Structure formats: structure tokens, C-alpha cells
């Protein structure tokens, strides 16, 4: 009885159902608009086939005799570029970020250089990447690393700078060596920043990888999209675009799960659970 009475006090937006329900409503509305616009020829169905048709094509792409092999190989290539690029930028970003962040002089000395290099759009580096690596997955990886490295670097530097001086001094006075201090004081402070950087980079890496594949023709889902587009097969193009979207969602979900697991001890996560 008490439970029933307490429920109505919560507005809908605060119940735990609000996110999935509103999310689903948004997606359904989007699908409905797409379907109707195409069926009623508000947009030309030759260039935007109805959702139902594209949705059916998704299954053909994923499991149909004709496209299955090509799709999974392309997916493998895209994920290969994504994973290697992300891993490389993670390693580089953490190592350099800790070095740059831990010393005020180095930090101030490199600040302008970082701010100068960081905004260079990764797509602008495509010609350089092709000269160095050719039209190959390594060109994709190079540009992905460029795009993600700065994000991770900035987050790691911010994390290292954010270390509580009192905690640091306390650790010192208790006689902790540099390695122990790095492990018990610096690392726990940096980790939430790092995880945010990784989660952001996960999506950036995917977008950049697929963009390069479309523009350059490096093997992967992007190349498949470009090929079917120039062959005049729009249904496959939209099916692939949908699949790329789903891939982005899955990646984001996995990285968020990872973040929650890694940071379960962190106050920000704990308070979220309590609320």
C-alpha cells in the first residue's frame, strides 16, 4: 500500500522507465516519419526508400547469401582500424599525458603546441596518410590515432593536474615512493578523466574510420557504402548506414559498461547508484 502511494509522487521523468520509454518513442517517431515521407513521396522514394524496405535489407546485408561475406569482412576491417587506432592513441595519450601533466614547466611549455595541433581536422591529414601508408588500413589507423590521441591526452593531463595536493603531501609524509604515489594517489584521480576520454574517443574513432573509408576507399564499411552508392543501390547504402549507427551504439554501450565497472569505487558512480 505504501509503495503504491509513494509512486505517483515521482514525476515521470524521474522514474527509471523514463529513459527507455522516451528513447523508444523517439526512435519510433523517427521511423514513422521516415516511412511516411517515403511512402507519400514527400521525399523521392528512389533516393530514400521507406524504412521497412531498408530494415528488410539490413537482414540481407547481415545474413543474406550475397552480401554476408562482404559485410562481415568490411566490418572486421573497420573494427580492426578502430581497435588498433584507439589502442595506440590510448597508450600514447596516457604515457605522454602523465609526462606532460606531472610537471608544471613542461605543461606550460607544451601548452601552445598542443592547442595548435589539436584542432587540425583529422580528415585534412588524409593526403599525408596516403603518401606515407598508401590506401590501406594503416592510413585509416594513422588518422584515427590523430583524432583520438588529443582527446585522451587532454583528459589525462587534466586528470594529472587535478591530483589533490593535500593527498599528495600526505602520501609523501607517510613515506610513499614515487611508484606507490602514482598508484594510490595519481592513478585513481586520472582514471575517471581517462575513462571519459576513452568513451569519447570510441565514438570519434568510429566516425573517423568510416569517413576515411568513404573518402579514400580504404577497405571497411565506409568503402562498402561508397561502392554501393556509386553503383546506384541506395537500399544497401541506407542499410549499411543503419548498421553503422547500431555499431556506434554498441560501442558506446560497451565503453559505458566498462567505465562503470572500472570506476565502481568512484564517488560519482556511487552517488548515481544511490539516486
Amino acid at each position, binding site marked *: 500500500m505504501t509503495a503504491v502511494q509513494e509512486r505517483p509522487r515521482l514525476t515521470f521523468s524521474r522514474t527509471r522507465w523514463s529513459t527507455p520509454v522516451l528513447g523508444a518513442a523517439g526512435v519510433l517517431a523517427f521511423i514513422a516519419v521516415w516511412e511516411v515521407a517515403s511512402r507519400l513521396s514527400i521525399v523521392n522514394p*528512389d533516393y530514400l526508400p521507406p524504412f521497412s524496405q531498408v530494415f528488410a535489407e539490413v537482414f540481407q546485408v547481415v545474413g543474406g547469401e550475397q552480401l554476408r561475406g562482404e559485410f562481415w569482412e568490411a566490418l572486421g576491417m573497420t*573494427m580492426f582500424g578502430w581497435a588498433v587506432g584507439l*589502442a595506440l592513441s590510448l597508450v600514447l595519450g596516457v604515457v605522454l599525458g602523465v609526462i606532460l601533466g606531472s610537471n608544471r614547466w613542461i605543461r606550460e611549455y607544451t601548452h601552445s603546441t598542443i592547442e595548435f595541433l589539436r584542432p587540425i581536422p583529422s580528415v585534412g591529414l588524409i593526403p599525408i596518410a596516403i603518401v606515407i601508408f598508401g590506401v590501406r588500413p594503416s592510413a585509416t589507423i594513422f588518422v584515427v590515432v590523430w583524432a583520438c590521441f588529443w582527446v585522451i591526452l587532454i583528459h589525462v593531463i587534466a586528470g594529472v593536474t587535478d591530483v589533490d595536493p593535500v593527498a599528495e603531501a600526505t602520501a609523501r609524509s607517510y613515506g610513499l615512493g614515487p611508484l606507490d604515489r602514482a598508484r594510490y594517489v595519481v592513478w585513481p584521480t586520472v582514471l575517471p578523466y581517462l575513462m571519459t576520454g576513452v568513451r569519447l574517443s570510441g565514438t570519434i574513432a568510429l566516425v573517423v574510420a568510416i569517413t576515411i573509408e568513404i573518402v579514400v576507399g580504404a577497405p571497411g564499411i565506409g568503402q562498402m557504402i*561508397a561502392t554501393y552508392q*556509386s*553503383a*546506384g*543501390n541506395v537500399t544497401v547504402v541506407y542499410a549499411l548506414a543503419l548498421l553503422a549507427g547500431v555499431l556506434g551504439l554498441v560501442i558506446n554501450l560497451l565503453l559505458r559498461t566498462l567505465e562503470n565497472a572500472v570506476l565502481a*569505487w568512484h564517488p560519482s558512480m556511487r552517488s548515481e547508484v544511490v539516486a
Partner: protein
Amino acid sequence: MAKFTRPLLGAIGLIAAVALTACSSAAPAPTETAAADAPVEIQPLVAGVIPVTDIGPVYMAQQNGVFEENGFDLTLQSAGSSSEIIQAMQSGQVQIGYGGTTGVFQAVENGIDLVVIAAASATPDDPENGINDLLVVADSPLKSAKDLEGKKVAVNAPGGYTQLLADIAIKADGGDPTKVEYVQMGVPDQPAALESGAIDSFVAGEPFGTLGREDKGFKTLANPFVELSDHAVVAGVWYAIRSEVEKNPEYYAKVAETIDVANTYALENDEELRESIATFTKIDPALAARIRLGSYGKLPLTVENLQPIADWSLELGYIKKPVDFDNLIWEP
């Protein structure tokens, strides 16, 4: 420590696993040694290509094992444009590249020392059946190419082959090509833009020309090939970097010879060629059976067959100096 490192290790493991899976699926199949009775040494050959119908003959020859018989392990590496192919070539990863003749003339004028080693395609015998005609909507008020002055015309690459063709048609019709507003647009987007009225005409590229004419009722405003020359001309070529060719003339001679074999076979097997094009470009096979194609293997790589495009390119300002064909065409 273990608390937060374990998921991290897991993540790294996951990434590594994905990477490995991708690796194994991407690993090229081991080069098959030639049949025991033909002890040919297999050499790698990477060709930079654009996924267009002109690659059909070489793709077909690759599938039929022609390149392997001639001692090549051929890889067709797709790129978005000729400039990307040339960049990849300069890095030494690509041995030959495909491109339109205008683009090659321009690259050479810009200081890239290329030589043309073989013909890739030529304009069709029947100019009325030109691939790159200027299309307009069925009820367009435009009557001839001259009417395009002040109108918007879509081309896939500004300053490239298709724009040259449009310029030729307009000039030959007594118009001034500089008064046309050219818009850069990907070929797949051009039919939609024409239908919506965003552009007034576009230079057709297959399969969109055939799709437009058959499904949308687009009509031909002008056919540049009629004005281009009184005979068919070589429109697409295979090129390579001069220093590489001079370093390894026997290799490139053999490459050129194999491409010529591929073109000759394509000339005699139109149906099989169209099936190969469908597989290579992913154009629907039923559509590939109907699209307009250039001619393959009909015209040898001679000055006469290249001259008309060079002359028009010079006249319309696409290049500044006449093309030095004695230098450009490489003969083993």
C-alpha cells in the same frame, strides 16, 4: 589495484581479440604458385583503381587468371580519385594507376613525371550513344548546349574530364563555357539534384545515365562525343611513374602487354565483361547488361587517338602547353 585493473585488462584483451579476428579475415590468401608445368616467377602488381566500369576488362582478366599466367599477383586497390592513386604511387606501394587522359595531362603539367603505358578505355564507336551526355529533365525548356549559359551544371570533379566534355559541347554549339555555373557533386547525387531542380543539367556517368534515361525519362541535351572528334578516342589510360618504368622496363612491358590482352578479350566477350563489371562495381547485373560502355581494346595507344582530347584541353584552358606525346607515351 586488482579492482580496477582487471576490467582494463579485459578491455585490452577484447580489443586484441577483435584486432586478431580482423587480421585473420583480412590476411591475403597465400600466393598460389603457378602450375607446375609453367615455372613463371610471380611478381606482385598493385594497381590503383577507381571503382568504375573502365576497370572491368582488367578485373575480368584477373578473375580469369590472365595476370597470374603472365607472372603477376595482381591486387586492385580502390581509391577515391586519381590524385590519391598518384600519391600512393609516389610512396611506392602502387605500381600502375588508372585515370582519365585529361587528369594525366594535368598531373604531368604539374610536374609529376608520369608515362602512359596502356589504354584503359576509349569512347564508343557510335558517338550518338555517348556515355557522358548532358542530361536534362523530360520537360526542360533547354533546347541545346548553348542554353546552358548561366545555368547550373553538375560535374563530379571541377576541372576534370566530365567538365571538359560539357565545355566542348557548349563551345561547339556556339556558347561560352565560362558562363556556365559548374557545381561539384558526387555522381550518385546528380539525378536527385536534377529532379529537384537544384541543377539544370548534369554530365551523365554510368549507371546513373541509363537509370535516368530509363526510369526518370531524362533526355539528352547534347552529346559531347559528337563534337570531340570525328573518330573514337582513348579516354582512360593506365599510367606509371617514369623513373619506376625506366628502372624496370621488362616488368612494365609485360604489364602493358597483359593489359592489352585483357582489353582484347573484353572486346570479344561483351556479355562476360558486363557480368564482371556487375561483380566489380556492384551495379545490379540486370542493369549492367544495359548500361552504355566505352569501347575496350579497339583503339591502340597512339598519338592520333589521344590528340583530340589534348587539343580540346589546351583550347579550353585545362592545360597550358601542348602535350608532349613523344615523352608521355611509353613504348618498351
